[in-house]
Every structure is written in structure tokens, then in C-alpha cells.
């Protein structure tokens, strides 16, 4: 899933404070799972903004709403009228949702309330970890199911580097060494010999280096 983190309140306030009317708009899928951008968080953030406006003696109309996914047209039917009638929107979606809305409503300013951080999993309640960088050419089949592109600080494809210490990465004792995980996993699979297969030079043209990517289903 896509993980995001709400921006500092002050930064959000500075972006939107000059609009007399504002719709705070949640996205109730990925970023709701990480309790940063769902419809509930939109309600809380709207209250905080109203309080701040009151403190500063500013007349502001701030409403909140949301949809299941801010990245697809069909979810907007219910709220289309509200958005079209808004002076500005503060979106709690990931960067995709913000851009989708900006494109869908070209005359309405849409501001991001979150920093979109990574594609990750939820190994335990309240913990999110980066697991994929959408590089477009998956190597998990040869690395025992551990992604060195997203989990090694140097994206090493033939690691581990010399900085690996007690299973931790050189950048931080809190960060697992991806290559320690690869090696452990290969060993558990009885495939440690696979480590010596030299991983070829990667084709990054399938990554963002190749420009914005698109994928069309021909049958639709």
C-alpha cells in the first residue's frame, strides 16, 4: 500500500489560510490504513483548522468530506457537487490523489495535506516499512523475496557492502541490512549458492529514469 504522513499543521495552515472557503477531503483507502489521510483524519484536521481560524479571528468556512479513492473518477459521483462548489480543496490523499483531483477540477486549487512517503507493508499495528520502489523490473525472484532496490540504502544488487554490521545497515542501527536478510533467506531455502550469481547491470529505463510510465489494458 501507499504510505503517507500528514504534513506539520503549521505548513498546512500556511498553505490554506487565505481561502475563505475550504473543503478538507479524505481518501479512505491506503492512507486511511496508516491513519494519516482517511475521512476520519479529514474531520479531525478540519476541526483543527477551524480552531486556528477562530484563534486568528478569521472568518473561514471549512467543511470535510472524502471518498474511497481519490485516484479514480467513479468514486467522485457523490461529492462532485461539493468539490465543484469549493473555493479550494485540502486533499489528504497521497500525491496521486492530489494530482488526480487537480486534473479533474482544473480551476480549483488542490493542496496536499500529506507527504507521500513510500510503498510499504504493515507488519504490525502502527508500523509501516518500505518494501518496493516500483522500479519496473522485479528482482525478488533471485534475491529470495527481499528487495535490495528498496531496502538497501545503496540499492546494491550484488551486496552486502562492507558496512553491514550485526545484521544492521551502515546508515543506522535501526535499519536492517537488506543483504543480511537476502542471505538468511537464501540459506533457509537451501539456495545460498545463488548469492554468487552476478546480478546483471540493471535496466533503469523501466524505473522513473525512463520518464512517466503508463500501462493500458487493451481489452477495455
Amino acid at each position, binding site marked *: 500500500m501507499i504510505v503517507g504522513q500528514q504534513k506539520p499543521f503549521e505548513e498546512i495552515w500556511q498553505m490554506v489560510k487565505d481561502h475563505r472557503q475550504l473543503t478538507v477531503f479524505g481518501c479512505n483507502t491506503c492512507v486511511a490504513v496508516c491513519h494519516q489521510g482517511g475521512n476520519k483524519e479529514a474531520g479531525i484536521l478540519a476541526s483543527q483548522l477551524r480552531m486556528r481560524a477562530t484563534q486568528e479571528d478569521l472568518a473561514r468556512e471549512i467543511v470535510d468530506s472524502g471518498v474511497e479513492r481519490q485516484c479514480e473518477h467513479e468514486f467522485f459521483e457523490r461529492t462532485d457537487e461539493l468539490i465543484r462548489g469549493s473555493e479550494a480543496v485540502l486533499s489528504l490523499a497521497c500525491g496521486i490523489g492530489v494530482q488526480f483531483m487537480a486534473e479533474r477540477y482544473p480551476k480549483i486549487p488542490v493542496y496536499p495535506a500529506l507527504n507521500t512517503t513510500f510503498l510499504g507493508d504493515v507488519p504490525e499495528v502502527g508500523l509501516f516499512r518500505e518494501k518496493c520502489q516500483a522500479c519496473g523490473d522485479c528482482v525478488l525472484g533471485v534475491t529470495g523475496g527481499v528487495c535490495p532496490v528498496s531496502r538497501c540504502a*545503496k540499492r546494491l544488487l550484488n551486496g552486502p557492502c562492507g558496512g553491514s554490521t550485526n545484521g544492521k545497515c551502515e546508515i543506522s542501527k535501526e535499519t536492517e541490512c537488506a543483504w543480511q536478510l537476502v542471505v538468511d533467506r537464501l540459506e533457509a531455502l537451501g539456495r545460498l549458492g545463488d548469492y554468487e550469481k552476478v546480478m546483471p*547491470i540493471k535496466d533503469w529505463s523501466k524505473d522513473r529514469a525512463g520518464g512517466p510510465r503508463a500501462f493500458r489494458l487493451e481489452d477495455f
Partner: protein
Amino acid sequence: MVETITGSRLEKVLKSGHQAVTSECGPPRSADASHIIKKGHLIKDHVDAINVTDNQTSVTRLCSLAACVHLKLQGLDPVLQMVVRDRNRIALQSDILGAASFGIQNVLCLSGDHQRFGDHPQAQNVFDLDSMQLVQTVRHMRDEGKFLSGDEIKQPPSMFVGAAANPFGDPFKIRVPRLAKKVACGAEFIQTQCIYNLDKFEKWMEGVRERSLHEKVYILAGITPLRSVGMARYLQKNVPGMDVPDELIERMKGVEKSKQADEGITIAVETIQRLKECKGVAGFHVMAIEWEEKVPEIVERSGLYPRPQID
């Protein structure tokens, strides 16, 4: 006359069967090249080649390539250190050609410290290739006369290709296979991480010999003299992948402060003397970080001086 591929002095020394000695100089954090030229002259008679570090510890410095050119113009044999952290494959290949155009004949292929440690922790890193792929790249350019794209290089670079090995990084079980992988990629010489835990290094060398890797690549053992007990403690606690045993700290602690630097030199000399007997060690890489003036003493006391005369 020994047959060599590149004309590198380091290659000639190693292929003649001598134990080689290399050292390294860090370029200055300024545009003043006199600093690195002076360092080069301090050690030139005591070493076969001089590595020039590439923005080591991710701190911005005068570039390795330019510093190597300065040394080359002084008649010294530089080893161009290249990290893949800061340049993509286009820039790396371009710099290799640039270096070769000045007659630089050695390259050491490294991944590089993460930028978090340096003066620009906010920087974007590159890591388009990894260190092994850089080894492959230089060999491909030299031996096939081609760029990675497949296009022909009319005058290919002539470089003796090296890589680093850290016998003390984790997981240990992968350390010999990792060397094997670098050899498979085409590494011709290896410079190791600083050695303080001799038992562990010798254990690693045992694994190296079991697979006859020492017959396929020249291994230069990394030596860094300790200047003080504080430095030993710092390396032990704060430098990832560094293995400084407690006994060594105790030994440094047992010497009064004014004599700790001398003790560090003695330890370095003893290390070299012990490893001279270690089968498969083809020489020494003396990294006296910002203490280059001590390299001649270490080399002389270790019985590695004079250096062989190679035309």
C-alpha cells in the same frame, strides 16, 4: 620481462612476484592542489602506487580524477578510486576515459559510503551500478573496447582493475563468496578494509585459499596505524564494518599518551610482519589517514624498503 596488460607500475610489481605496497592520499577540500602533491612526494619512494580517495566518507573534496592527474604529472602512479554513489554509468565511463587520457592506469571500484555520513546528507545518491558492476564495466571497456551500450571505443582505456574487500563485514559467511564474485566480475587486485583482528583476517584468508582465489587476484592487506586509544575506540564503536579487538584497545591504553602514536606504528609494523607470512597476501595497502608522513617509517620498519625498481 613480466607480461602485463596495462603498463601500470602496480601491475608490474605484483606480476613480478614482489609484495606490493600502496598507500593513499585524501584530496583537499579546496582547489589548491599543492596539498596533494606534497603528500604524494612524502611517500612516493616508499610505495608502488598511490590511491586517491573519491569524496571519502561522502565529504565533498577536490575530485579524485583531477587529483590523480596532479600526481601523474609528478611522475607518480596513481590509483583512481571511483565510487558509484555519485555518478551514473555515463559519468563513470566518461571519467574512466578522461583518466586514461592522462595515462592513469589503475582504478579501484567502490560503492562508497552512504551520503548520510558526509557534509551533504540531503543529497540524492545515484547507485546506478554497484561496485561489482563497475569492475565489469572497466574490464568491458578495456578488454572488449566497448562501452556498456555496445558502441566501440576507438582507443580503449588501459587500466589495472581493483576492488575492495571487507573480511570483517557481516554476514561473515558471505565474505569469501563476495570476493569470489568480485573476481568473477574481473577484479585483478583487492585492497582490504583495515585489519586489526588478525585471527579473523587469517580465517578469511583460509577460505580464500580453499577456493584458490588468491591465485586469481592479488590481495593487498589494509593497514591503518592507530594514533591513540581514542582513535581505536572510535573505530571500534562508530565505524560500521570495522573490527577492533578489545586486546588492542587495552594495549594502547597501557601506553602513556605521548607514546601511543609510536605504539600504533609498532602495531602496524607487527601486523605487516605477521601477514607477510600469510599465504595469499600479495602486498599491503597502508592507509595512514592524514598521517602520510609516517608511511615511510612503517614501510622501512616492516622490511618492505627499498621498493623494487621497475622500468
